[in-house]
C-alpha cells in the first residue's frame, strides 16, 4: 500500500500527487516512470515520475483525468492509499552538457519535461523551455519551469495567455533566429511530439520524445507497448520510454493507443453510472 501524502489541483482535472514510496524515491532518475494499480480490480497504468524527495520518501506524479482509472485517482486524496506502485521503470534520460537544450512540453506533457529540464540544467546546459496548453486554465508547472529554465516561453492555442499559437512556432522561431541548439526534448500529446520532430528534422537537431503507449506489466514481459522505431520493433517499457523523435512511427502509435476506445468508454460509463456524471467540458 502506497499512501498519498499530498494532492494539488494544477488545472481543471489535472492533479499533482505525492506518494510515499521511499525506495523508488531514492532510485529514480529523470525520464523514468512507475506503473500503478489503484485497487484489486484495477488496471496497471504507467505514469512518469516528475520529482522525488528522499527526505520524505515520496515521489511526485501528475495525472490528467482521461479515463476510468485516472478519474478514480483524481477522486483520491491525502491519506488514501494506492494498492500497487512499481518502479522506477524504463531507462533514464541520457543527460549530458549539450550546450543549449530546448525543453518543449505540451499540455500534461510538461510534467515529464520538468525533471529532464532540471537534470539538463544541473549538467550545465543553457536551458530554454517552451510550454504550451490549449488555454490558460490548462497550463501547468509554469512557475517550476520558469525556475528551472534560463528562458521560458509560454503558448496557448486560444491566445488566452502568452504566445498565441503552438509550441512548435516558438521552436521554429528559435531555430530561425540562429540559436545553436544541441538537444531538444519534446513531450506531450502524440501529434505535438510529431510536430516537434518534424520541426527539428530538417536541421538534424537531436530530438528526444517520451512515448506513452498502453502498457500492462511494464517490465518487457507482454509487448503491449511495442512501437516501430527506425523500422524496428522496440518495447517502450524496457527500451524507452525515450526515443529519437525522428525515428518514431507516430501514426502506428496513435492507432495502437486507440485499441480500447470502445472499452474505455464502457468503463467510464460504468463509473459515472455509479458515481454520477462528471464535467470534462472546459
Amino acid at each position, binding site marked *: 500500500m502506497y499512501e498519498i501524502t499530498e494532492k494539488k489541483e494544477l488545472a481543471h482535472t489535472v492533479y499533482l500527487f505525492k506518494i510515499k514510496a521511499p*525506495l*523508488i524515491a531514492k*532510485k529514480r532518475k529523470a525520464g523514468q516512470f512507475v506503473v500503478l*494499480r489503484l485497487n484489486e*480490480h*484495477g*488496471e*496497471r497504468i504507467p505514469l512518469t515520475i516528475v520529482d522525488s524527495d528522499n527526505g520524505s520518501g515520496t515521489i511526485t506524479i501528475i495525472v490528467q483525468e482521461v479515463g*476510468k*482509472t485516472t478519474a478514480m485517482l483524481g477522486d483520491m486524496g491525502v491519506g488514501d492509499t494506492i*494498492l*500497487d*506502485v*512499481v*518502479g*522506477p*521503470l524504463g531507462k533514464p534520460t541520457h543527460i549530458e552538457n549539450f550546450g543549449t537544450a530546448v525543453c518543449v512540453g505540451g499540455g500534461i506533457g510538461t510534467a515529464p519535461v520538468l525533471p529532464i529540464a532540471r537534470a539538463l540544467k544541473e549538467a550545465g546546459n543553457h536551458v530554454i523551455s517552451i510550454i504550451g496548453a490549449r488555454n490558460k486554465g490548462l497550463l501547468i508547472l509554469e512557475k517550476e519551469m520558469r525556475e528551472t529554465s534560463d528562458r521560458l516561453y509560454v503558448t496557448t492555442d486560444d491566445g488566452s495567455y502568452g504566445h498565441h499559437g503552438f509550441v512548435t512556432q516558438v521552436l521554429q522561431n528559435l531555430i530561425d533566429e540562429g540559436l545553436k541548439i544541441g538537444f531538444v526534448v519534446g513531450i506531450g500529446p502524440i501529434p505535438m511530439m510529431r510536430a516537434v520532430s518534424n520541426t527539428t528534422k530538417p536541421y538534424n537537431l537531436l530530438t528526444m520524445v517520451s512515448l506513452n503507449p498502453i502498457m*500492462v*506489466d511494464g*517490465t*518487457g*514481459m*507482454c*509487448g*503491449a507497448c*511495442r*512501437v*516501430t522505431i527506425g523500422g524496428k*520493433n522496440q*518495447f517502450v517499457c*524496457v527500451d524507452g520510454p525515450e526515443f529519437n523523435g525522428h525515428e518514431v512511427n507516430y*501514426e*502506428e502509435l496513435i*492507432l*495502437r493507443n*486507440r*485499441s*480500447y476506445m470502445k*472499452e*474505455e468508454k*464502457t*468503463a467510464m460509463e*460504468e463509473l459515472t453510472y455509479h458515481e454520477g456524471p462528471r464535467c470534462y467540458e472546459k
Partner: protein
Amino acid sequence: MDPKETKERMKIPKQVMPEQDPHERVRNFFEVPYGYTAEQAMEEAKRCIQCKKPLCVGGCPVNIDIPWFIRLIAEGKFVEAAHKIKETNGLPAVCGRVCPQEDQCEKVCIVGKKGDAVSIGRLERFAADYEREHGEVQIPELPRWSGKKVAVVGAGPAGLTVAGDLLKKGHKVTVFEALHTAGGVLMYGIPEFRLPKKIVQSEVEYLKRMGVEIVLNAVVGKLETIDELLSGGYSAVFVGSGAGLPNFMNIPGENLAGVYSANEYLTRVNLMKAYQFPEADTPVIRGRKVVVFGGGNTAMDAARTALRLCPEEVSIVYRRSREELPARVEEVHHGEQEGLKFQLLTNPKRFIGDNDGRLKAVECVRMELGEPDESGRRRPVEMKGSEFCIDADVAIVAIGNGANPLIPQTTPDIKVNKWGNITVNPDTGRTSKKGVFSGGDIVRGGATVILAMGDGKKAADSIDEYLKTGLW
C-alpha cells in the same frame, strides 16, 4: 509384492477423471477436470505395482518418492501422502495439474509398458487437493537459523522452489517479485481453467506461513541491483526472473490493434481478469475470429482462453503438421473438444488492417515438409502460389520468448549466451558471478514449470553448500 498380486493389480482399469462437459466449459473459466474422488484415487493407486527399483522417481525432475505416496493413497492415508510429496515438491497441487507427466514419470512407468501407465499426476493432484480442502496443511518444523539470508528474484516456480527448500535448510529467504502478485507464470500465464488461481495462492500462502518473505512490486535491477542485494545483507542471490520478452514474427502489420503476444493476451485475461471486464478494469479485445500462431502449450492456452471469450471461431495456425505439434496431447484434445480449429502446415505472411489500424485478416501460405533440420524435424517449406487470407480481428503470437534484459543490463558480470539467457553450470545453477545462481526460463529460454522447479531444487542444494563452505 508377490507376482499374483502384481497380476491382480495390473487388471485394474485406469480410472477416468471426470471433467466438465465441453459445451458447458467453453462458456466458463472453471477448471476442466474435476479431480478424482477418494474411491477413484484409492483404486487408481492400487494399480501401482510398487516396483523395487521405481523408474518413475528418476523420470521426475524433482525426484518425488512416487511409489511411497501412491501406497499411502491406496491405504487411504491421503494427508500423509500429501506430506510425503511435499518433502520434495513444494507445489504438488500445481504440478499434479500442469506437469507433462506423459513425458516424465508416467512415460517410464512399468505398468504403462503393457497398458495405461499409473495416473501419477492425477494422484499427486488428489493428495494435494485433499490436504488443502481438509485443512490439513502442516507447516514443517524448521531447523535453527543458519544466520544467512538469500535473495530470490522472481516468485515463479523456480524462485518459490528455491525459497521453500532453502528455508527447510535453515536459511532466511526474501523473494522479490516484479508483479503485484506472487506466482509468476502460474498466475499470469496458465489459465484459470487449467490451474485455478486460488490454488496457486494457497501454495504461496503455505510458503509464507513457513517463513518465506515475499516483496511484491520489486523489480530487481531497477529498484535494487544484484550487487546491492549482495552488499546489503544477502549472502547469495537466485535469479529466476522467467520468460522475458515475447518474440514476434517480424512480418508486416504485426503492430495493428488486435495483434497480441500470447504473454499479453494471457496476462490480460489471467492476471488482470479481463474476462470479467468491466467489473475488472483491464479490457481485452474479444474478437469474432481469433487466430493463434504457434503449436506449443502456450498457444493452446491462448486459444482455449479465446474460445471462452465467445468468438465465433478460434484457429491455431502452425507451420508443421499435427505430429510435430509441441503441445501436450491432452491440451490439443481438450482444445478440439471445445471447438478449436487447426490450420496445419500454414504460415502467416502479413497482417492486414482496416483504415483504423485494426486487424481484419491475415494472409497465410501453405507449407510442405522438406528435409529434416538440425532439430531432426522436417523443415517446413513454403508452397509457392498457395497464399490465402483468413478473416481475423484478433491474432495471438505464441512463438516463444527472448530473454529479459533487466538483470544482465544492470549486472554486466553475469554471463549470458547469444540469446541473452543467463549461462549457468547445469549441475549447480551457478552463474559466472560469485554468489549468484539462476534457473528456470531465464536460463532455459522457455521450458516447463517442473523443469524450472527442478532447477530450483538443484540451485537450493548448491546455494546451501556455498553458504556452508563459502567456496566458489
